[in-house]
């Protein structure tokens, strides 16, 4: 099975997940355009994905696509990934747009509680530094999603360091062993 990971914006703006997968593991990288868009390119990016994205995916024989964020893509099945918890809380129209655009999607994880159990592996890259609270809660949710003996691959930028507040990663977990 061929799974394509797509980043809607420039390759120069690779986020943690894509950078980790694309650069630590050697997989082919394709770009829709040879040069970045200028000005305010959101409409152009949406148009490029709508018009050229599915052609590229069909040409490369992709069976499924993992989308980071929302793009208008004529392709299925899709899995949308969005870790912007705060963004989604503030922008409900974004959720409506996601539902409209991903009518054929398999599963959608939009920064909410994960309904996944017994996973072999989870990837959590360059997200912790964006979470200013509830880090132990998020990690315990990932723990619940994994099977016993499952692996978590986590990356974190060394800068900025955590603030050291009561809910910071350094403050320890509020979840303890039951035994």
């Amino acid at each position, binding site marked *: 099975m061929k799974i394509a990971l797509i980043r809607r914006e420039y390759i120069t703006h690779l986020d943690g997940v894509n950078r980790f997968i694309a650069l630590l593991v050697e997989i082919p*990288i394709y770009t829709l355009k040879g040069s970045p868009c200028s000005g305010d390119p959101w409409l152009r990016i949406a148009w490029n994905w709508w018009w050229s994205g599915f052609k590229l995916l069909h040409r490369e024989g992709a069976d499924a696509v993992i989308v980071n964020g929302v793009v208008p893509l004529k392709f299925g099945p899709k899995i949308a990934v969005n870790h912007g918890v705060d963004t989604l809380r503030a922008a409900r129209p974004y959720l409506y747009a996601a539902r409209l655009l991903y009518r054929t999607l398999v599963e959608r994880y939009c920064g909410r509680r994960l309904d996944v159990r017994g996973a072999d592996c989870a990837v959590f890259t360059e997200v912790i530094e964006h979470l200013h609270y509830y880090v132990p809660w998020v*990690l315990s949710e990932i723990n619940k999603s994994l099977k016993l003996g499952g692996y978590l691959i986590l990356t974190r930028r060394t800068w900025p360091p955590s603030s050291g507040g*009561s809910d910071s990663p350094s403050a320890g977990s*509020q979840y303890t062993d039951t035994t």
Partner: protein
Amino acid sequence: MPEVLAMLEGAGLRPVESYYSAVNDLTFVDAEPEEHKRLGSYADLLKLAIQKPTRLNLLRAAAYPLVKLVPSLRKLIVAVSQKYREPAPTATERWG
């Protein structure tokens, strides 16, 4: 690094491997999309800095040997951990 490992341990995940990665030190540069695809080593970074001598590229090329020598200066921490127990919430008294 110890902070990240302690955080994982507290969440019921036992760290099995951890290291400082230089991937971000190699990729945060001024490059065109096609040039980004070719960046895989310090030699590529030097070539890019010569072809496109922007401030970011020159500083990155100058700093890269240093971050390779001193791992803790690298921009990314990678930790692989394994689940060994289930988490369970406990009552925490905060205003007592």
